[in-house]
């Protein structure tokens, strides 16, 4: 997996935001990671510790908000939780491939000082 590349980018965005805010330290990063993003939260944590070393984010904490994937059912006009990209609606049993959530790889906010 490519968690190190992704974490490097998250840290770059966090440090840019901290500098723009006139801060000198990054204290905490909050990421939003979808269950079908292909990224493993444990590996992100591992990568985070590695990439923060020697930067203004050294010692910062990482919070990961897991986003449960959901498909849209056209028949029921409602979402349902899903485990992959193509799932049966638990209400009407029609099949949907219209993923509404679950691919997120986002930085939500950053706490600085």
């Amino acid at each position, binding site marked *: 997996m490519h968690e190190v590349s992704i974490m490097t980018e998250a840290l770059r965005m966090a440090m840019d935001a901290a500098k723009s805010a006139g*801060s*000198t330290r990054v*204290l905490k990063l909050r990421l939003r990671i979808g269950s079908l993003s292909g990224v493993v939260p444990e590996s992100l944590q591992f990568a985070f510790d590695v990439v923060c070393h020697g930067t203004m984010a050294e010692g910062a904490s990482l919070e990961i908000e897991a986003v449960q994937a959901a498909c849209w059912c056209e028949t029921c006009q409602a979402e349902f939780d899903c485990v992959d990209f193509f799932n049966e609606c638990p209400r009407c049993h029609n099949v949907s491939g219209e993923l509404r959530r679950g691919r997120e790889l986002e930085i939500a906010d950053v706490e600085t000082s």
Partner: protein
Amino acid sequence: MCQECGCGNGGGDVKIGAHVHGHEHHHGHEHGHGHHDHGDHGHAHGKQTVSLNRSLMEKNSLLAERNRGFFKAKKLLVLNVVSSPGSGKTTFIRETAARLGANLRVGVIVGDLATDNDAARLRTAGIPVVQITTGTVCHLDADMVSRAAGQLDLDQLDVLVIENVGNLVCPADYDLGEDLRVVLLSVTEGEDKPLKYPPMFHSANVAVITKNDMASAAGFNRELALANLNRVSHHAQIFELSAKTGNGMKAWLDFLVQQRAQV
């Protein structure tokens, strides 16, 4: 380093073509130091939360869109070919280029962790090719492709094929600016690959079952493989072929000609 595949920090060891770029990564490190002492300055006091709500893939996505616009202006059909290691990407690309012949001129960007063996195989066949060796990085990104494309005479090409690093996980998240993402599944790999690697198979526009001359020797269950592909890659166009024997290649080549005409 990441645990699954040893993927490293983006870009540091990447080498393109015959040149060896020594990309120094200075960013980040100088900052942070030296500023610590100003902690008491009026502008940098107290905790604050800066809301971002931005995609971590944003930088790559922007570069990919820039590539896409550039390639479109050059009237190039661009393919991003992905698969496991050993699915036959290089042979598939070589035969595609050879059979298109003068009809459509093909150039190739090849990504591997190390060696330029794949590029050498294509070069021997007379195909213009640039090798990207990614060092420890398990995927190509839009910036690497942009830099590599600059080493090809794009005005002499109709189709640009990007042979990605053999990996069904990481390349799924990286848009390179391609028109079509083409995923290969060889008959020797097992019919459940699409179920095991759904993000990649789901993201593909085209799925190609390769090495179908070996299907019976491998005990390949075609119906099961197609059912799995249809489940995960339900929007993808599916081709079944053998680049080695040429079986099924015509439909694929006709498709490319038709796609190129739409660029």
